[in-house]
């Protein structure tokens, strides 16, 4: 007999040859966030209680996406190492109603100029959000694995995958 543990927490980790500050900026600054992954304009008020909003690119909006794609509240901001925030998709009422999930970014310095970035996404009672962020839905862009792979490529090579 086994005990049931977590089923709804997802953990993603990537090693990136970049400074903690560069990784922090890539997450929190719109001029960086629009260059990888789903290319949102990330806007953060980096203090507890501050607002977070991710806005869709004009291309995605032209194809029917809402302007604000994700919103949330900053719970903890300790630049350039730790960011905890709530996270809620906004593009239809059903997914919005799954309510806020929690995302934690942790940036740790390792050897030889390589940092690890760990993203922990806690998704209790948010099945549609979970499907989206894991990237299991065909044609939905690949979720966190896609975003983090692209972020690594951007920071290490200055280049990224073709946008969606």
């Amino acid at each position: 007999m086994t005990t049931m543990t977590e089923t709804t927490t997802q953990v993603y980790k990537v090693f990136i040859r970049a400074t903690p500050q560069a990784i922090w900026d890539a997450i929190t600054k719109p001029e960086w966030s629009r260059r990888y992954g789903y290319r949102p304009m990330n806007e953060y008020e980096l203090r507890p209680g501050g607002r977070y909003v991710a806005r869709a690119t004009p291309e995605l909006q032209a194809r029917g996406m809402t302007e604000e794609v994700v919103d949330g509240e900053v719970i903890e901001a300790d630049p350039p190492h730790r960011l905890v925030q709530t996270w809620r998709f906004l593009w239809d009422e059903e997914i919005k109603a799954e309510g806020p999930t929690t995302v934690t970014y942790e940036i740790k310095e390792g050897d030889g100029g390589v940092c690890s970035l760990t993203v922990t996404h806690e998704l209790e009672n948010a099945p549609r959000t979970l499907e989206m962020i894991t990237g299991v839905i065909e044609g939905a862009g690949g979720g966190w694995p896609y975003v983090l792979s692209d972020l690594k490529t951007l920071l290490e090579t200055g280049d990224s995958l073709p946008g969606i």
Partner: protein
Amino acid sequence: MTDDDRVFKALADPTRRFLLDRLFARDGRTLTELESELEMTRFGVMKHLRVLEEANLVVARRRGREKLHFLNPVPIRLIHDRWIDKYTERQVSALADLKTELEGTA
């Protein structure tokens, strides 16, 4: 050994692929849970988990007194993005398409 070498080495073993499959089915398991599904000593399972952790395919998290193991698909995605995509037409995929599709079937 490069990062890719570690991933391929870790994946080149049926027990380790089985462990990843179990974590894919349900993430965040303890060693005891994973061990109960394998005809193998605890020490053997630990060794396999260590190889998976070194390849960054499994990330271990402490929660209280428990150590939970999570499947991390990012290294596989990195190999996919760097190699597989070079030979296939990139599937241009979009949240907007998904939205249309879901709304159409809702």
